[in-house]
């Protein structure tokens, strides 16, 4: 794991050579498989392994040698043994010499043998490849020793995807396998939004004495895709930056609409039904009623997915990114239903940009982006975030008449200052902030206070901001809408 990749790549050819060599023995192993699994007391029932998996079980899985170390467990045994022998000679007690000889026997045992290189056929099956978020997925792993040598000490650690939590049973097993026998273990993970791919399974083998240890990785690709349905959100108030197209955002432009805006002098060609006849009766002047035009907006949903945004109230709670993404999903479907053009972007080291659009195809694409885009993954990426580069690229892409709904937990100043800069560039910003802070310790209270200050500063700079914590996003929106003027 800590080894340089170069060494791993260099050993690849070696591994494939050995795989080629062991092919004849694989056939042999398949022949023995039926009775082997039958008498294997340590293995669980293997009925759940489907036919395809059982068919491919004979072929060894691709492996990659990671490292080989001396455990130095038996260090000093020879010294202790010789000390006993020496004492026995000094005090003329033959029994001490014999006890020392046993120690020498163990020293020889520790030196003999080498950590075996495992040749395993690894199959992993999941109970559901497309679970809904929160579903429990049962993972069954079967590893068969298709090599020629016995593995007296085999420890398997499965490469559970970082975004999935194991809720039952460790994804590990320690066992010993004769050639042709298999071990099966099961565990349950809780599905979370996103595409999850299993990492290589780590196999640690030791020789019988445990003096040498070899770590090998077995690559058995398995993936699950968890795409949540977009729940329809409530009415989301937008700010007054609109396109020329007809929509549902009331503007300060007079014209055709529903709500009263102003009256003006009659001009030739004004429709008869817009003439203020009451005023005509009172004063004799012709005047025309202007109504607020309702237009469509272009909205970009910007989700903060920097590493700092993966904050949660406690280790098991939903992160702020999860809350943001689910709220963005609600906003996405609500705005799209309202006739607005909606796009998606992520404030993340990875590139994520869905240009604003409308229509059913766009809706499907947006759902896909929110569910599985690597930039919005349930765990942060390792890359570095460059703020000015990101802002430059974002400004180049965003349409001039687009406003921004910025989903961020506001746990650092970068998010707040970016919101102000985007707003200053003319893309009106509404900050929607899930609250991941708690108030148990003094440090947590300080963080809460700092976040409140950021919200306050944003509001005083004329940026709309709303936060939601325990109550749901639509409730918070409904409560905030009453406060907001247009």
């Amino acid at each position: 794991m800590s080894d340089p990749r170069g060494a791993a790549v260099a050993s690849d050819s070696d591994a494939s050579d050995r795989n080629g060599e062991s092919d004849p023995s694989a056939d042999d192993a398949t022949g023995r498989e039926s009775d082997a699994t039958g008498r294997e007391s340590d293995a669980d029932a293997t009925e759940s392994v489907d036919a395809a998996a059982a068919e491919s079980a004979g072929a060894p899985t691709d492996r990659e040698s990671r490292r080989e170390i001396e455990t130095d467990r038996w260090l000093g045994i020879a010294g202790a043994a010789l000390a006993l022998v020496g004492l026995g000679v000094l005090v003329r007690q033959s029994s001490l010499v014999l006890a020392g000889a046993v120690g020498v026997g163990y020293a020889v045992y520790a030196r003999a043998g080498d950590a075996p290189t495992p040749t395993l056929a690894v199959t992993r099956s999941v109970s559901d490849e497309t679970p809904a978020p929160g579903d429990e997925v049962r993972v069954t792993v079967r590893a068969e020793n298709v090599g020629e040598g016995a593995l007296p000490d085999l420890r398997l650690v499965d490469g559970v995807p970082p975004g999935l939590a194991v809720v039952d049973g460790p994804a590990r097993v320690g066992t010993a396998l004769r050639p042709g026998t298999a071990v099966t273990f099961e565990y349950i993970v809780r599905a979370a939004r996103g595409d999850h791919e299993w990492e290589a399974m780590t196999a640690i083998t030791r020789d019988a004495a445990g003096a040498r240890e070899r770590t090998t990785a077995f690559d058995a690709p398995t993936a699950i895709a968890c795409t949540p349905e977009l729940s329809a959100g409530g009415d989301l108030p937008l700010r007054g930056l609109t396109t020329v197209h007809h929509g549902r955002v009331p503007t300060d432009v007079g014209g055709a609409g529903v709500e009263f805006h102003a009256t003006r002098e009659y001009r030739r060609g004004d429709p008869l039904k817009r003439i203020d006849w009451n005023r005509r009766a009172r004063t004799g002047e012709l005047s025309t009623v202007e109504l607020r035009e309702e237009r469509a907006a272009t909205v970009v949903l910007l989700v903060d997915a920097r590493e700092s945004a993966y904050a949660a109230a406690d280790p098991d709670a939903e992160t702020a990114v999860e809350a943001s993404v689910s709220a963005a999903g609600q906003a996405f479907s609500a705005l799209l239903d309202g006739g607005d053009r909606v796009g998606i972007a992520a404030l993340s080291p990875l590139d994520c940009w869905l240009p604003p659009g409308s229509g059913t195809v766009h809706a499907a694409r947006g759902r896909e982006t929110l569910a599985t885009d690597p930039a919005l993954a349930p765990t942060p990426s390792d890359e570095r975030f460059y703020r000015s580069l990101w802002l430059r690229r974002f400004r180049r892409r965003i349409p001039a008449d687009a406003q921004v709904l910025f989903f961020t937990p506001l746990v650092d100043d970068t998010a707040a200052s970016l919101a102000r800069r985007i707003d200053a560039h003319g893309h009106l910003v509404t900050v929607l902030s899930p609250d991941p802070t708690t108030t148990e310790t003094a440090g947590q209270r300080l963080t809460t206070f700092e976040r409140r200050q950021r919200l306050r500063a944003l509001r005083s700079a004329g940026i709309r901001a709303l936060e939601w914590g325990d109550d749901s996003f639509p409730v918070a929106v409904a409560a905030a809408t009453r406060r907001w003027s247009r």
Partner: protein
Amino acid sequence: MSDAVRDGERGASGESRDDAGADSHEIDARPPTVAIAASLAAAGVAATAASVASPTGGALLGVAALGFLGGSLRGSARVLTWGAAVGVVGLALAGYRGAPPEALLVAAVGLAVAWDIADHGVGLGEQVGRGARARRNVAVHAGSGLLVGALAAGLVYGVTLAVGGGQPVAALALLLAGGIALISALR
């Protein structure tokens, strides 16, 4: 023994479930209960055998057993090494007081097996945790360790009987040195 193993396994799985509820992200890094139980059993045999000749030596081996228990519970290989060192001193003392070869051989094999299983258990705990299935692994390791000890003890005891009890101790030591030289030459 098998009953104890089964009880140990059940205890282990029960505890791991409790721990999983408390913190599902970390594995329980303590050694498997079956390893602790087997180590204690072997150490108990060693202490009993040594106390036949010398109560003090037996007591020191008992201290070693406590060290193995503490080292296993704390997951510390260093404590186990100290326990083994105390055990070797106990063996030396028992031998010095004139323990019969049979008792001392049993004590030596018991001490080695007890330390081996305890240390193996600590390594298992770190790598796969207490919640995982590891009974077969521990059984195979303990079995091979016991087999090697029994073979070595049987060999040296047989050789001693064959050459007759009256030989001077230095002759035995020289025989052992010759054996070691032969083995290292063969390897």
